[in-house]
């Protein structure tokens, strides 16, 4: 028997494409965000509202990742924003290679910001860098305030968190302790920006827009 030291990154193929994407966005001076959450947290609703409300200020292009269907791309295209749908055919996350192909289908030169809406999943997408400037995690109140502590990986790696569907808290329809979720998330990630929003009613969205506007100016 002979032992051979290899010391090679196992996901080197993904990282190679992720690095290419980083260079692509840097060269074009565009901000790229990777939105990650459980299925049904409201990523598409947040995005559609953000695109419409900011259309005079920021030009946003979207890459939609789903296991199947183009339902989300349809919803985004109603806002007139350019959108590319990726179907992963069962895979639980987007890969940097898929994003690399998708960004070439977007009119990147005309955009300020590219948002990748990842496949709904709080676990797997956190292991696959896509070449984004930052990960944004979305948590809706119906999922429970224990998610940051149950799924620490994604909360530790995200630059910002949106706590969505806060309109459900009115009337005590849902038990969700916003302070607990914030404290647990900040324990993992002290500098995380946290926005409490309802993409349905628009409550709290202005703080998110202000952060987004600042972020893309700084690219």
């Amino acid at each position, binding site marked *: *028997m*002979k*032992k*051979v*030291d*290899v*010391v*090679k*990154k*196992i*996901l*080197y*193929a*993904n990282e190679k494409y992720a690095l290419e994407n980083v260079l692509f966005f840097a060269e074009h001076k565009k901000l790229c965000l990777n939105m990650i959450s459980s299925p049904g947290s409201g990523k598409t609703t947040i995005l559609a509202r953000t695109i419409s409300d900011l259309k005079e200020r920021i030009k946003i292009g979207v890459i939609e990742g789903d296991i199947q269907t183009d339902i989300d791309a349809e919803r985004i295209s109603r806002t007139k924003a350019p959108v590319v749908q990726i179907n992963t055919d069962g*895979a*639980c*996350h987007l*890969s940097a290679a898929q994003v690399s192909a998708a960004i070439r289908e977007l009119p990147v030169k005309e955009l300020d910001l590219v948002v990748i809406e990842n496949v709904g999943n709080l*676990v*797997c997408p*956190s*292991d*696959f860098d896509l070449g984004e400037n930052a990960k944004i995690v979305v948590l809706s109140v119906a999922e429970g305030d224990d998610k940051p*502590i149950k799924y*620490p*990986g994604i909360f*530790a*790696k995200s630059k910002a968190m949106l706590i969505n569907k806060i309109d459900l808290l009115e009337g005590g329809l849902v038990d969700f302790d916003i302070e607990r979720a914030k404290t647990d998330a900040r*324990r*993992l*990630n*002290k500098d995380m920006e946290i926005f409490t929003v309802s993409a349905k009613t628009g409550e709290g969205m202005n703080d998110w827009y202000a952060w987004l506007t600042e972020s893309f100016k700084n690219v």
Partner: protein
Amino acid sequence: MHETMVAESLVAAISAEAVKHNAKPVAARISCGGLSAVNDEILCFAFEAIARDTPCEGMKLQIEHKPLRAKCRNCSRDFDVDLSMPKCSECNSESFKLLADAPLLLEEIELQTD
């Protein structure tokens, strides 16, 4: 679920090493960090399935989990973080900065030499 992709990459990387050394691989040691969403049992199962009919068939996989490290903002010490109870192991402070997590690495392979 994404363990299948990890297993595919692993089979490709080990097979390339095997060709380079012209020997059959029999075991491999890999490592991952504390934030890595890799489940040992699922990865071994996926690896076994994907390795079938490749030079990696029948290999043994050893997975080492490296602890997530953090720097305490209170006492400035580096420590291993337990994410279920995230606080400094020295001074109990809950204010710390997570350090870069260890990447998913193929560390070493064992080759049959006859």
